[in-house]
């Protein structure tokens, strides 16, 4: 049992995730009314005007003022996003332009009538889906809603008012709202408003509207609206407490499980569960138990509708398989910690249920243990039999029946022939034998027919008195009864076995398809071939035409493999939508369902890699099984694409690595070969110079050699910069230390210039590559020494996280037209007395960039130029005093 005093970690985590998710999303505020005419739009506009005054960026997505002057006046000053005109069968409809809103991206958008159904061929069939998309991009939304449009209250409203609402909004959208404002009016006030003509009534409503606005109705609707708002407020408080882990009577840990089937009254069950779950703050889930009996088309569609309904009402929908529904439900309930199971009242035939070991409810109750069972009344007696009965689904084919009759006929003939030899009891065994044989080929229905028919024929033709259905002695009666029972049971058992076999075969086919798919993908030489193979296989399995798109630059799609005609612009936009929103779109989905294609994004763990689009013939269905199989295929394709991508990357990386290593080896080799003779020359000249007389040419050799050495070093440095083989090795350094070192080494090349050095306080330690900084400083100082007259200034300053090095001279400065080229390699200033190759400055630039820094130059007053090197770095936590 859960310790009630301790916050549930799962709940805390869920709370955090919800907060995080919502923080990136826009906020939704719903202005809720009990019915039209209470002034929701007015209240929304009033609130928007206040927001506008506060400087919020507001746009009107769509607002219906119904020509009311007060309301119209409130829209003044608000920016309107023009409506989109949609042609549909010669009628021009005006719809909200979601793309325009997304492009405009205001802080807050006003969208009236959340329950509105969009014109055909719009992006989403329902306006609330548009709203969800806007929220997902971070736009805040104000919207209005009448309580009777709320999905879970549709039935209740229908009971009160007698009007069944066609336009509904899922409760999950209502739950998603960050704020709900109830626009409350008493029934009397509203009647008064209607009488004053202040309420817009659609022209075609007429009498129906009058009926709707009866005082009794209004009172009931008002109560629902009030209660809903109270529940919402209560839930928000609870969420608040949970998020803050505030101790409180830790409310229900109830979890409801509702069995969903293809029955039309399953819908009612789902709504009922949702209401109870909401009222008790419980979570809820819907379970569909897939049995071995294949559903017909009508049932499939109804099932899919019921599952969608459950999802849209906020249930977690799961599917499981098993022939014993009670066991399957209990298993799922235990696995998912459900505390209550909701099922419908049994409506099957009592006799059949007894044969099957009791009704579903009986069996559930018997084995449920700690789980409570709710049995909910079905208020629509329909001729439809519940799926649990399952008999009606087993529609037998006429052919099977004919076979059964023919078999009985043949055995009867045989019996008549052999009866004189074997006696009538043995004929009964012949019948039994034939039933056994036929059970291997026939379905359950024809089997029952055959058992019945053969029993009757046997009785009629062979058991005394003949040609009557009357049995004269007890012995024959028992025989006949036993025969009938055995025939039925054997038929049942055999056909169940066959069904199992069929299911096995179906699973095996799927497994084979998957295996084949995987093999084709893996064995293909390239991604392209693999994808072409994949489209071919998908075509074959799902009877469709397939196109595969991969992500290209900037979130666009490029087709890579297609077995059908190219997608038109509209279809491409479906594919793009699926790609960008990471959700399936097009036919069989809630987004753009009028489209001819079905698109699924190819998802890897953290990216969307592309889209697969399927084009079906108009009459084809794409069932749950198929969708699951197809999703598995898509997952495989995604893995393949990702693997290919990684392989590609790895190869590229390896090539780069190799070429870098080669370049480094080459450069090291060149360095060695050039520097060794120079070292010999320098050292030899030096040692000779000591023993020879002053002023000999040996010093010239030494100076020339050291100059050559510098040029070689510069060229090699440049080559290393170009090859990108310079790697920084960061360490902590005191700037004073580096500068002392540089000034020491460069003493000769500074030509007796005075160097003023200024350090920041503290002067370190900074995280730097000292060798690069030394090279930069040495080159800057050498350059400054060449251009200065007397004085060089070296100034360091640190503005976290940039270290700035400024070196200025007091020379004649740089000609403005040369500044742009001064860091180019081999660029030599035309006006100066430069020697060397003009590499020093480009090396400074290269080294600065290798250190992720930059370099720039400017002329300073009164004369001279200043080089500025910026290096990103950080100061140690143990700075120097």
């Amino acid at each position, binding site marked *: 049992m859960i310790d009630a005093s301790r916050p549930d970690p799962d709940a805390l985590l869920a709370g955090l995730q919800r907060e995080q998710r919502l923080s990136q999303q826009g906020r939704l505020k719903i202005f809720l009314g009990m019915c039209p005419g209470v002034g929701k739009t007015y209240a929304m506009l009033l609130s928007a005007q206040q927001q506008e005054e506060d400087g919020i960026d507001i746009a009107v997505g769509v607002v219906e003022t119904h020509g009311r002057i007060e309301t119209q006046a409130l829209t003044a000053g608000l920016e309107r996003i023009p409506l989109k005109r949609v042609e549909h069968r010669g009628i021009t409809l005006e719809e909200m332009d979601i793309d325009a809103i997304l492009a405009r991206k205001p802080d807050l958008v006003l969208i009236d009538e959340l329950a509105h159904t969009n014109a055909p061929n719009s992006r989403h069939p329902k306006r609330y889906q548009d709203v969800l998309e806007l929220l997902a991009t971070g736009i805040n939304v104000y919207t209005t809603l009448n309580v009777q449009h709320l999905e879970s209250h549709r039935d209740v409203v229908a009971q009160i008012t007698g009007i069944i609402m066609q336009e509904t909004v899922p409760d999950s959208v209502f739950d998603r709202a960050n704020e709900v404002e109830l626009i409350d009016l008493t029934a009397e006030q509203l009647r008064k408003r209607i009488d004053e003509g202040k309420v817009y009534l659609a022209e075609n409503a007429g009498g129906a509207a009058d009926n709707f606005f009866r005082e009794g109705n209004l009172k009931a609707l008002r109560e629902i609206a009030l209660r809903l708002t109270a529940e919402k407020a209560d839930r928000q408080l609870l969420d608040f407490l949970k998020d803050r882990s505030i101790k409180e009577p830790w409310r229900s840990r109830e979890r409801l499980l509702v069995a969903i089937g293809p029955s039309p009254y399953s819908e009612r069950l789902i709504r009922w569960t949702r209401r109870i779950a909401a009222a008790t703050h419980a979570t809820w889930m819907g379970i569909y138990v897939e049995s071995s009996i294949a559903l017909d088309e009508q049932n499939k569609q109804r099932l899919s509708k019921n599952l969608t309904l459950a999802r849209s009402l906020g249930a977690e929908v799961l599917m499981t398989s098993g022939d014993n529904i009670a066991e399957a439900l209990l298993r799922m309930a235990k696995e998912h910690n459900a505390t209550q199971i909701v099922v419908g009242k049994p409506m099957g035939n009592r006799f059949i249920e007894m044969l099957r070991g009791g009704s579903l409810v009986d069996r559930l109750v018997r084995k449920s243990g700690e789980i409570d069972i709710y049995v909910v009344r079905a208020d629509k007696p329909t001729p439809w039999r519940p799926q649990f009965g399952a008999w009606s689904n087993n529609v037998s084919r006429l052919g099977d029946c004919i076979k059964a009759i023919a078999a009985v006929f043949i055995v009867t003939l045989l019996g008549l022939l052999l009866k004189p030899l074997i006696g009538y009891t043995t004929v009964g065994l012949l019948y039994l034998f034939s039933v056994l044989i036929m059970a291997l080929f026939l379905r359950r229905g024809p089997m029952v027919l055959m058992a019945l028919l053969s029993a009757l024929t046997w009785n009629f033709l062979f058991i005394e008195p003949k040609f009557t259905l009357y049995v004269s002695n007890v012995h024959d009666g028992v025989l006949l009864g036993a025969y009938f029972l055995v025939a039925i049971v054997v038929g049942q058992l055999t056909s169940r076995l066959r069904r199992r076999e069929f299911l096995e075969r179906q699973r095996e086919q799927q497994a084979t398809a998957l295996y084949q798919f995987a093999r084709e993908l893996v064995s293909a030489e390239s991604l392209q071939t693999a994808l072409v193979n994949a489209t071919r296989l998908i075509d074959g399995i799902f009877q469709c035409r397939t196109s595969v798109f991969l992500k290209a630059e900037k979130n666009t799609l490029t087709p890579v493999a297609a077995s059908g005609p190219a997608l038109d612009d509209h279809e491409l936009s479906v594919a793009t939508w699926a790609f960008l929103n990471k959700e399936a779109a097009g036919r069989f989905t809630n987004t753009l369902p009028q489209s001819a294609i079905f698109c699924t994004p190819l998802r890897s763990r953290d990216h969307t890699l592309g889209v697969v689009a399927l084009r079906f013939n108009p009459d084809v269905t794409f069932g749950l099984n198929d969708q699951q199989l197809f999703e598995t295929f898509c997952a495989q394709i995604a893995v393949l694409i990702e693997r290919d991508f990684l392989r590609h990357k790895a190869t590229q990386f390896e090539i780069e690595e190799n070429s870098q290593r080669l370049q480094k080896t080459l450069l*090291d080799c060149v*360095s*060695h070969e050039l*520097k*060794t*003779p*120079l*070292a*010999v020359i*320098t*050292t*030899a000249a*030096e*040692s000779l110079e*000591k023993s020879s007389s002053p002023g000999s040419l040996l010093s010239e050799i030494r100076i020339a*050699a050291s100059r050559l*050495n510098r040029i070689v070093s510069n060229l090699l440095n440049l080559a290393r910069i170009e090859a990108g083989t310079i790697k920084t*090795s960061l*360490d*902590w*350094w*005191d700037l*004073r*230390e*580096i500068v*002392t*070192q540089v000034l020491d080494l460069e003493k000769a090349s500074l030509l007796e210039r005075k160097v003023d050095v200024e350090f920041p306080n503290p*002067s*370190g*330690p900074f995280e730097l590559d*000292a*060798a690069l900084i*030394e090279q930069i400083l040495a080159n800057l100082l050498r350059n400054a020494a060449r251009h200065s007259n007397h004085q060089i200034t070296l100034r360091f300053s640190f503005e976290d996280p940039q270290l700035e090095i400024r070196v200025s001279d007091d020379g004649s400065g740089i000609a403005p037209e040369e500044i742009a080229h001064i860091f180019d390699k081999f660029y030599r200033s035309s006006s100066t007395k430069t020697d060397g190759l003009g590499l020093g400055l480009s090396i400074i630039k290269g080294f600065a960039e290798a250190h992720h820094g930059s370099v720039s130059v400017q002329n300073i007053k009164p004369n001279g130029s200043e080089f500025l090197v910026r290096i990103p770095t950080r100061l*140690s*936590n*143990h*700075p*120097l*005093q």
Partner: protein
Amino acid sequence: MTAPLSILIIDDEPQIRRLLRVVLEGGEYRVFEAEMGATGIQEAASRRPDLILLDLGLPDMRGNEVLRRIREWSTVPVLILSVHDDEEDKVEALDGGADDYVTKPFNNAELLARLRVLTRRLSPPGDDSTFESGPLRVDFAIRQVFLHNREIPLTPTEYALLRVLVRNAGKVVTHRHLLTSVWGPNSVEQSQYLRVYMTHLRNKLASDGKPFSGIHTETRIGYRLILDEERG
């Protein structure tokens, strides 16, 4: 010093070897040569030289490998010769047991000075309870440091740092060596301590407003306490 000290040069460049021979024989050393790493190891084993000059860029094996193989059985002082700008190799060699390094093109005087520091270790140890070089005097027995006969108050860490440098006077001491000797083996990444204390130490040893110039920074490698006889 009765017999001249013997030196083994392991370098693949004949010109460098000839040059070194001239320089070293002028400095009263007996010189052997080896062209390859493998022959170098053999020569080192058979000739038992007093010093080894090892080039890091050998054609047959890495200089560091040669060093490792020699260090398996000998503590002979090894001086690294390198034309590479590759400090990592030098640091690896120094941490792997080499005693010091010179970078080509080298200065003759500098080379001979380095060798002298290394050979000093070979002579019998005298009284090493004090150390003196120029104005600096360290009395290990009483743990006191004097500059121009004035006592310099040092913190224990500063003293420990100076002591490591003094014990290796004239030789380069790598960052790793300093960090492990003063702060312990877990501090090899904490080079910022080293910078801070080195600066403090230099400032305390300053005279006439100038930081102490006797401790030399070898970029990316370490520090060297310069003996007075080398200076100027």
